[in-house]
């Protein structure tokens, strides 16, 4: 019963914002923050009450497969918590950051629509509905990337929109062929039907989905749009895009479709491992050469997505635990790093690492939180990034994939290298900077501090007693593969 509200609340907020808010007043901020706080509460509540159960909400009072259903299990609850947590901090960061643009209420309305789209994708149990809500999130993202109204932003948004549109059309083609061969749209029924059909169709559709969702999650051969889009957007949107959008639309959809519908065919796990390791190495290498802070972070996102995909591809219980944990960790530290970049950009008017200097005196909060985030993403103990990467590497060794383990280690070292570069040139350089154009506001500071604290606190999820109630149910949903059919149909 909770799930419909996770779509209704942001949707209502978006419609009301466009109706009542004008240029000057603060209704948009009040409404969106209220909506987001209630969403986070609901998401946390749904995650902790679900456990190993699966609840299905059927729309319009009909039964599946006649209608659309929302599926609430540990995986969707987990993703909802991540999305809404990052969204809340992003809103806190936006309040003063967005004042520099005109018509901020449009920003908040689009932001709420972005949340609607992501929540809808995560909650739904119907494959066409997934497509529709994915489009909502993407349309909002295209407009938000172009929000700053600069030439580069339009260029990035156009590229993003073309790529997104190609991938969406591919996904729709895949959905159509699935419908033709199974005559249903509910994911659980599709999964049940596919087991009796010609595997050729499954493989073809899986290949199409791999390209489509690969484009959405920007794994390596399909990554071309990401560095432009994620570095051109306003900082809070960059953090939403890098932190959660590519995971909700890309990785989550890949998990649901490849594991729960197709039952994780070994060929595709192999492809995940290969694509993941290519992403790790090449994107880290490209990040090393960047001097634009936000572009560097965008490339870093690609390589961290590679870690998640590698963990999923290894496919053992431990590896999937690592991947799931890394989804959460990457959302937290990458969002924090984009906030850091945003506040530096606002304070100094540049994001070129060579033009920054020693910011310890001018921006103390930004500098110290960026240190935490950098160490975390580079995988140093005791921060959260260390544990998830360690788990993935151990799992790779355990399952005899020594080469992949070595690649992951090299990737972590490269990550450490380019974040040392960020720290060395960006925040602890020789020229001491004391003057800043615009002060970093309280909302921005508190958003950064919350995420920095989470970087440390989240590590405790790995402690056995806590892991059993948080991460283990999520892993069990993924690892049970087509157990999803039983959970949804045979209630």
């Amino acid at each position, binding site marked *: 019963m909770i799930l419909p509200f996770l779509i209704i609340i942001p949707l209502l907020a978006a*419609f009301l914002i466009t109706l009542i808010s004008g240029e000057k007043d603060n209704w948009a901020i009040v409404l969106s923050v209220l909506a987001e706080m209630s969403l986070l509460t609901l998401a946390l509540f749904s995650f902790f009450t679900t456990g190993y159960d699966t609840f299905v909400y059927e729309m319009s009072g009909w039964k599946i497969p006649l209608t659309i259903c929302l599926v609430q299990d540990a995986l969707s609850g987990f993703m909802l918590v991540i999305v809404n947590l990052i969204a809340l901090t992003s809103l806190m960061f936006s309040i003063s950051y967005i004042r520099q643009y005109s018509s901020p209420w449009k920003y908040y309305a689009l932001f709420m629509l972005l949340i609607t789209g992501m929540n809808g994708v995560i909650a739904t149990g119907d494959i066409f509905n997934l497509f529709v809500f994915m489009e909502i999130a993407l349309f909002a993202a295209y407009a938000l990337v172009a929000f700053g109204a600069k030439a580069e932003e339009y260029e990035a948004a156009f590229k993003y929109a073309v790529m997104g549109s190609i991938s969406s059309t591919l996904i729709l083609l895949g959905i159509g062929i699935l419908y033709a061969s199974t005559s249903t749209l509910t994911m659980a029924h599709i999964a049940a039907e596919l087991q009796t059909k010609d595997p050729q169709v499954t493989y073809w559709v899986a290949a199409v989905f791999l390209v489509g969702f690969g484009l959405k999650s920007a794994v390596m051969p399909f990554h071309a749009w990401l560095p432009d889009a994620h570095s051109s957007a306003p900082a809070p949107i960059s953090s939403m895009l890098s932190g959660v959008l590519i995971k909700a639309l890309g990785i989550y959809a890949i998990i649901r479709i490849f594991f729960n519908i197709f039952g994780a065919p070994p060929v595709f796990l192999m492809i995940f491992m290969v694509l993941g390791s290519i992403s790790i190495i090449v994107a880290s290498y490209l990040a090393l050469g960047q001097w634009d802070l936000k572009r560097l972070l965008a490339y870093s996102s690609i390589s961290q997505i590679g870690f998640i995909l590698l963990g999923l591809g290894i496919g053992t219980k431990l590896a999937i635990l690592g991947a799931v944990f890394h989804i959460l960790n990457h959302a937290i530290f990458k969002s924090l790093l984009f906030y850091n970049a945003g506040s530096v950009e606002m304070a100094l008017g540049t994001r070129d690492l060579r033009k920054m200097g020693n910011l310890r005196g001018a921006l103390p909060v930004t500098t110290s939180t960026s240190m935490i985030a950098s160490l975390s993403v580079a995988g140093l103990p005791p921060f959260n990034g260390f544990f998830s990467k360690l788990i993935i590497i151990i799992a790779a060794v355990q399952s005899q994939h020594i080469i992949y383990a070595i690649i992951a280690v090299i990737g972590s070292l490269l990550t450490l290298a380019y974040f040392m570069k960020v720290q060395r040139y960006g925040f602890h350089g020789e020229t001491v900077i004391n003057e800043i154009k615009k002060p970093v506001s309280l909302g921005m500071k508190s958003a950064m501090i919350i995420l920095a604290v989470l970087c440390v606190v989240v590590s405790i999820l790995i402690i056995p007693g806590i892991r059993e109630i948080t991460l283990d149910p999520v892993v069990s949903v993924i690892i049970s593969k087509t157990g999803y059919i039983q959970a949804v149909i045979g209630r």
Partner: protein
Amino acid sequence: MKQTEGMTLIVKTVTRISVWLILLYGIYIILHGHLSPGGGFAGGVIIALAFLNVMLAYGRNFIKRWVNIGFLHDLESSSAALFLAVGILGMAIGGGFLANFISHGKLFNLLSAGTIPVLNIIISVKVSMGLFVVVWTLSVFHLDKGGKEE
């Protein structure tokens, strides 16, 4: 090139008659959406095209004098909110979100099928207003060529 004055007198006269026919046809399509082909989307586009017809024939200033574009945009968002409200009512009264909670009536009657005609009307308002606002914005933007630098 000053095109805000609209087209020739012949076009204007024809438009004055034809636009009402187009509107009538659109309304027919919307109201019979649950009985015959068509429905809210098709009808909404027809109504938007009728508005466009007026805009092309009489020029933008004519529209600007008679209609408040901001109001059209508000109408669009409020109809979207109304759709959601019908859904929530369905949750409160009927079996689930967006349930058809009004009595279904007799098959083939104009007043039948519960919430379906209501939703058709809401959708048509939304679609027609939204599409008209988009074309309006595109053509207004074209007017101040070069735009103002942000």
